[in-house]
């Protein structure tokens, strides 16, 4: 029993890393643009399916496919931002709802394109299917590697945001668009870069996740909600909060799955999501809005 609990805790924490990578892109986008990209999950799926193609036709391991998927989705994100979302820039809640509706439509477009490109079957990559044995605990190898990758990418982005000028410009824009513009920052460019980067991270997350769970073209919707739950729990736009929230979500999923089955686990995510929105919209740490 204890053995099982320890294993569940470890896998839960490792999954937390994966959830973090999933959610970070969304957090970045929300922090700067106050936009929830409803197509985020579909970007993740696209990145994953792209990695599958790279694996099956060019024998590229997911580790190599990760940056490729990231770059492809980055370009897609750039196109979406400059072509669609920038035209919706308005003011206040007016723009928010319109952008939400636009990304709602976008989500269907992306999942349908994925369907056309990769078919409707569920796909995944058989990568590192062994397990690492620590004592009597058998930890899946791929989870370990993917979690590591996720934390590295997350750390890299965090480093960029806090230590470089360009990253700090992004955070400045998130905290005060007017102030940033007054400092001479090109807000349009920053928005484009942010959305592109967020989408790129989604693509990278997909390349990582497809090793762990199979995707099909329509899997995006649930992923978007999971990602949003993480950032809502952590405080929208709060980078550090998202880390705690991701780990918490990973643990919750791990234990609920074991005791109540996967249906209950899926429902738990949504329930958590709604509960957080209603009772603690500023997130667990209560520092909402700080990137």
């Amino acid at each position, binding site marked *: 029993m204890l053995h*099982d609990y320890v*294993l*569940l805790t470890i*896998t839960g924490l490792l999954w937390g890393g994966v959830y973090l990578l999933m959610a970070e892109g969304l957090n970045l986008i929300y922090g700067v643009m106050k936009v929830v990209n409803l197509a985020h999950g579909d970007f993740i799926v696209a990145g994953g399916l792209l990695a599958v193609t790279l694996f*099956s036709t060019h024998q590229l391991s997911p580790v190599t496919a990760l940056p490729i998927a990231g770059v492809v989705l980055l370009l897609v994100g750039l196109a979406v931002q400059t072509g669609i979302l920038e035209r919706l820039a308005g003011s206040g809640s007016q723009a928010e709802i319109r952008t939400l509706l636009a990304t709602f439509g976008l989500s269907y477009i992306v999942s349908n394109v994925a*369907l056309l490109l990769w*078919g*409707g*079957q*569920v*796909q*995944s990559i*058989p990568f590192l*299917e*062994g*397990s690492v*044995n620590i004592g009597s605990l*058998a930890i*899946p*190898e*791929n*989870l370990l590697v993917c979690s590591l990758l996720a934390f590295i990418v997350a750390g890299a982005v965090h480093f960029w945001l806090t230590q470089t000028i360009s990253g700090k410009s992004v955070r400045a824009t998130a905290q005060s668009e007017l102030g940033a513009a007054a400092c001479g920052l090109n807000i349009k460019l920053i928005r484009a870069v942010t959305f592109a980067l967020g989408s790129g991270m989604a693509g990278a997350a997909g390349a990582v996740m497809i090793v762990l*769970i*199979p995707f*099909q*073209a*329509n899997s995006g919707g649930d992923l978007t909600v999971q990602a949003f739950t993480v950032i809502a729990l952590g405080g929208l736009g709060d980078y550090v909060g998202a880390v705690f929230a991701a780990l918490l979500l990973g643990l919750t999923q791990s234990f609920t*799955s*074991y005791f109540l*089955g*996967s*249906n209950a686990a899926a429902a738990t995510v949504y329930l958590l999501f709604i509960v957080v929105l209603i009772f603690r919209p500023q997130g667990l740490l209560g520092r909402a809005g700080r990137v």
Partner: protein
Amino acid sequence: MAQRNTRKTLVWLKSAMPVIALITLFSLAATSLWAADASKITVGLSITQTGPFSAPALFELHGYQLAADEINQHGGLLGKQINLIYYDDQANPSTGVQLYQKLITSDRVDLLLGPYETDLVAAVAPIVTRAKMVMPALGANIGNYQGQYPYLVQAIAQTAQYMAPVVDLAAAKGYKTIALLVQETQFPKEVAQGIRDGAAKKGLQIVFESSYPPGTTDFGPLVLKAAATRPDVIIGATYLVDAEGIVRAAKAQNVNAKIFAFTIGPVEPEFNTALGPAAQGMMGTTLWFPTLKTPGNAEFVKSYQAKFNQMPDYHAAVAYSALIALSKAVQQVGSLDQTKIRDAMLNLSFQSVCGPFKLNHTGLQIGYSSYVLQWQNGKQVLIWPKDAANATPIIPHAGWN
């Protein structure tokens, strides 16, 4: 002044564009509500082209297409060429119902074929019966063929038979305990019942049984629990995706058993592609195999490979046989009278590539039976029953390394 007018026109145009686009599409809509064709015999069906069940369903579609081609090459049906119409039901029963309504009332097809798998068959059975059109169905659950849908005939083996040879093999090797993982949908549930009955008869005990909802992707916890009971045999009443998930979880947690067997999963080539070396030794059930010595089997395999550039699986074979059976009945009757065709099918008895096709008086399939296959070194082989086998079974499972 002119500038203002131009601007006004531009604004008007900009807003009018969506309207114009919509009106265009609207007129397209009007024209599509009318359709016609009479020089061909249309055979209609819905098939699952997208979603988690699409892999085996596509094999079925190919089977139907191959049979249609062959019939057409040999002069067609009643002197006319067969035209196969199909739509994507997305494994969604309500969509299937609407599609069959469309096929029956709008496309006015001459003959119907059934959709992929039991739940969809159950959903569309009422409207097909109301329309009094015969439909050979590839739904394995016996509940639909008890006489309440007299126009439904079963063109696939009964569910209870699927896992029977696996239980047989386990008993022959002297194993005693089974852990059973069942997906919470109709077909696997009935397979599970068949396993329970079979195990009781053969003296095996089910020490662990648990079900999971479709769409489950993480089998770690479930497999962990099953492993705790130390079973000899782990059986999954599954489809493809869950079978893969269970194997992965078992490998990742280093869970061992002497036999791993799954209903639908190992029979698909996708199973091996997705799992790689982990597929070694996995057993599955099939209703047909390329090396079976049934009449016309070798030619079937060759023509299928030539046309679709892949090996057929049992779904393709049963679908192929189903359309052949239907056309035989139609030729016998000499017309498109649905009731007469149904009666002819009930009395039909012939050797298809899957074995003896025979129905009882309520439409249940009593001729077909099931076999066990295994993945050995990246290839599928038939291992049980002995007289149909083309390789020796690798038993017990060699472990995960």
